[in-house]
C-alpha cells in the first residue's frame, strides 16, 4: 500500500532536503562513495552489508521519505552505536546500508535487488516500500534466497504469497481486516446510538481502494446500514470538490473514504469548506501522518483513520524522540513504527543466529518471538496477526482504537464535534 506523505506541510522540511540532495548528488556522487568506503574501513570489523531499495523519486517518493528512509537511517545509527550486531564468536559487526532508488518503477526494483545481490554482495535486503513494488520483488527475493520482511505491502493475497515464497513475511496487516475494522467500529457506534444509519463511501480506484471498499461495503450492508453514496475516483484526481458535493447531497451520517495521501488531504479540506456535517469521518492512508495534524490543527479531533499506534507507550515515546533527533521529523502514527519493528526483527534474528546466514535467519524469524517497538511479535504463517486497524485523532495524538489481535493501549473512540 502506498503511504505517501505528501502535500505542503511535510514538504516544508522536504524541499531544502531535496535541494540539498540534488546538489549533493550532482557534485559529490563520487565523494559520497569514497566517504562510505572510508567510514566502512574505519570500523573495527567487517560490516554486515544491508541493501535498501525504495523510491527516492517518482510517485511514492514522498511516502518513502516519511515512512521508509528515516527508519533505515535510525536503525543503522542505533545498531552501530552499540558497536554493531553481536556474532556467535563474541565480536560485533556493524551494519552498512547500501541504498538504491527504484524511481517507483517495479522493473527497477527488481533490477536493484539483483544488483544488490550480485554486484554488491549484500548480506540482507530490506523489503521495498509500497505494495506494488514489494510484491513485484517477492519472486526475486525468493529465488536469490533472501528473507523479506514486508511492511508497506497490504494485500489480500498473503496466503498465496506466503505459500509460494518461503522467506516472505507480512507485518502491517491485510486488506480485509483493515476494512472490517472501520466497518465494525461503525456498527458498534450505531448500535450505541452514537452515529446514524446513512453511510457515504468513496474510494481511490486502484487495488488498495477497491479491495477495502468492497470488503467494507459488504459489512455495512449486512448490518443494515443504508449506503447512500458509493463511488470511486482515480488516483490522479486533482479536484475532489464535485465528489464532496455529491456526498453532501446524499446527506450521510457517516463518511468513509478509502483514500491515499493527496486525496486524504483534499477530501478533509473539501469537507471543511463545503461543511460536511457527519457523526463520523474516516479517511485512510496519511490520516496518521503528523503533517495531517499540522495542516488541519484542532479541527481533526475525532477524525478516524487507518492503522494506529499506542502513542503513550514508553517504547513508542522513546522511538519518537530518537526518530526526531535523527530525521528531524516525527514518525507517522502507523507504518513508521512497524517499519522500525521489522528492522528490529532482522537485527534480533541475525544476533539470534549469530551469523549473517540467510536461511538460518529465515528459520529463526519463523520460530522465535521478537521484542519490538510495537510490542512482542510472533510470526504465525509468516505474518503478524495482531495489528491496529482503526485509529482516531484525540487531542493531537493519533490513538489506535481497534486491532485484530489483543494490543495494549486501545482507547475508547470519542465523538466528533463539527469542524
Amino acid at each position, binding site marked *: 500500500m502506498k503511504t505517501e506523505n505528501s502535500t505542503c506541510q511535510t514538504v516544508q522540511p522536504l524541499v531544502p532536503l531535496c535541494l540539498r540532495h540534488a546538489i549533493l548528488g550532482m557534485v559529490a556522487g563520487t565523494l559520497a562513495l569514497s566517504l562510505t568506503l572510508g567510514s566502512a574501513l574505519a570500523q573495527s570489523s567487517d560490516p554486515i552489508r544491508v541493501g535498501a531499495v525504495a523510491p527516492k523519486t517518482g510517485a511514492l517518493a514522498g511516502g518513502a521519505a516519511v515512512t521508509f528512509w528515516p527508519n533505515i537511517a535510525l536503525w543503522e545509527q542505533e545498531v552501530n552505536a552499540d558497536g554493531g550486531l553481536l556474532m556467535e564468536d563474541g565480536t560485533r559487526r556493524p551494519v552498512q546500508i547500501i541504498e538504491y532508488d527504484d524511481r517507483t518503477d517495479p*522493473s527497477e526494483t*527488481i533490477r536493484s535487488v*539483483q544488483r544488490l545481490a*550480485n554486484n554488491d554482495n549484500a548480506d540482507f535486503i530490506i523489503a521495498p516500500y509500497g505494495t*506494488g513494488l514489494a510484491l513485484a520483488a*517477492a*519472486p526475486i527475493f525468493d*529465488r536469490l534466497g533472501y528473507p523479506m520482511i514486508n511492511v508497506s505491502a497490504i494485500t489480500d493475497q498473503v496466503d498465496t504469497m506466503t505459500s509460494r515464497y518461503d522467506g516472505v513475511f507480512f507485518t502491517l496487516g491485510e486488506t480485509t481486516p483493515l476494512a472490517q475494522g472501520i466497518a465494525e467500529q461503525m456498527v458498534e457506534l450505531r448500535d450505541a446510538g452514537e452515529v446514524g444509519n446513512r453511510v457515504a463511501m468513496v474510494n481511490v480506484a486502484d*487495488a488498495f481502494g477497491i479491495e477495502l471498499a468492497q470488503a467494507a461495503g459488504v459489512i455495512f450492508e449486512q448490518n443494515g446500514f443504508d449506503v447512500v453514496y458509493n463511488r*470511486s475516483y482515480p488516483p490522479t484526481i486533482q479536484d475532489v470538490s464535485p465528489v464532496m458535493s455529491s456526498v453532501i447531497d446524499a446527506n450521510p451520517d457517516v463518511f468513509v473514504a478509502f483514500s491515499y495521501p493527496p486525496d486524504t488531504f483534499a477530501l478533509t479540506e473539501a469537507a471543511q469548506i463545503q461543511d460536511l456535517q457527519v457523526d463520523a469521518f474516516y479517511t485512510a492512508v496519511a490520516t496518521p501522518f503528523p503533517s495531517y495534524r499540522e495542516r488541519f490543527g484542532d479541527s481533526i479531533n475525532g477524525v478516524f483513520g487507518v492503522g494506529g499506534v499506542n502513542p503513550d507507550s514508553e517504547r513508542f515515546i522513546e522511538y519518537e524522540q530518537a526518530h526526531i533527533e535523527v530525521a528531524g521529523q516525527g514518525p507517522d502514527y502507523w507504518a513508521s513504527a512497524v517499519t522500525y519493528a521489522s528492522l528490529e526483527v532482522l537485527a534480533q534474528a541475525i544476533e539470534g543466529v549469530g551469523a549473517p546466514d540467510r536461511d538460518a535467519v529465515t528459520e529463526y524469524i519463523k520460530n522465535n518471538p521478537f521484542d519490538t517497538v510495537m510490542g512482542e511479535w510472533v510470526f504465525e504463517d509468516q505474518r503478524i496477526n495482531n495489528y491496529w486497524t482503526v485509529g482516531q485523532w484525540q487531542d493531537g495524538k493519533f490513538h489506535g482504537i481497534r486491532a485484530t489481535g489483543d494490543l495494549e493501549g486501545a482507547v475508547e473512540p470519542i465523538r466528533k464535534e463539527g469542524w
Partner: protein
Amino acid sequence: MTRKEVIYAVLVLAAFAVLAFIPSLPNSAAVLSLVIPITMYTVLATSWALFSGPTHYISLATAAFYGVGAYMMAPALEVMPYWMVLPIAALSGALLAALVGAMTLRLSGVYFVIFTLGLAEMVRQVITWYQNNFAGTRGNYVFVDINDAQIYWQLLALALLVYLVGWLINRSRLGFAIRIIGNDELVARHSGINTARAKILLFMVSGAFAAVVGAVMTPRFVYIEPAMAFNPEVSFLVVIMALLGGVHRLWGPLVGAIPFALTWEVIASNFPAQTVLLMGIAFLLVVYYIPSGVAGIMEKVYFRARQQRREVSHG
C-alpha cells in the same frame, strides 16, 4: 526470395539461435535483467517504426497498448490458460489501434499526435472505472510459473516475428502503398490507394505487438497497478530509441535500443535522481543532431567507404 535474402535470413536465424542460449550462461540472472528490457524495447521500437517510419505519424500510444496487454493478463488468467491470453492481447491491441486510427488517421497528423498523447491515461481511467464498478476484481495478481528465461525467450520469438512481419509488409502491396503515402499522400490518394485503410492496418499491427509485449512482461511483476501498466515513460523511451536507431530501416530501432539501454543502465545506477531530465535531454540531442538515426549514419559511412574503395581500385 533472392539469394541475398536467403543469406540474410540464415544469418538472422543463426543470430537468434545464439541469443537463445543467454539464459544458460553463468550468472545469467544478472545478464537477463539487462537483456530482457533491451529485447522488450527492441520489439516495441521496431513495431513502432513499422508504422511511424514510413507514415511520419508520431505515435505516443505505445504505453496504452502495452498497458492493455499487461492489464488484461490478471483477469484473463482466471478463465483461460496463459498461452491463450497472448493472441487475445494482440487482438485487443489491434482493436484499440483500429478505433483510434479510424477516428484520427483520416485527418492531419496533429490530431493523431494529440489523441495518442493522453490515450494511455484515458484508457487507464476507463479500465479502473470499469473494474471498480462492474468487474469487481479485487486487485490484479498474476501468479503463473513463468521465469525470466521464459519471458526472454518469448520476447526473442516476438522480435523474430516482428522482423518477419516487417519484411513481409515491405514486400507486400500494403508496404508499397504506405511508402507512397509517406512520400505524398495526395499522390497516393489519386493513384487509387485507400490511404486511411492502409494507415489503420499498419497501426493495428504496431498496436498488437505492443499489447503482446505488455502481456508477456506481466508475470515478472506479480502485482499489476494501473500506474505501472500505463506508464507514459514507455511511449517516450520507444520513440527515443526508434529515432536514435533510425526508422527507415527495419534493423534501425535495434541499433538504437541496444546502446540506449546500456547507457541507460549506467545512468540509472549513477544518477538515479536525474534520469527523467537526462532522458529529456538525450531526446533533444537525438532530434537535433541525429535526425536520420544511427542507421542513417551507418549507411552514409558505408556508402562513402564503398565509393572510396571503388575510387581507389579505379585509380
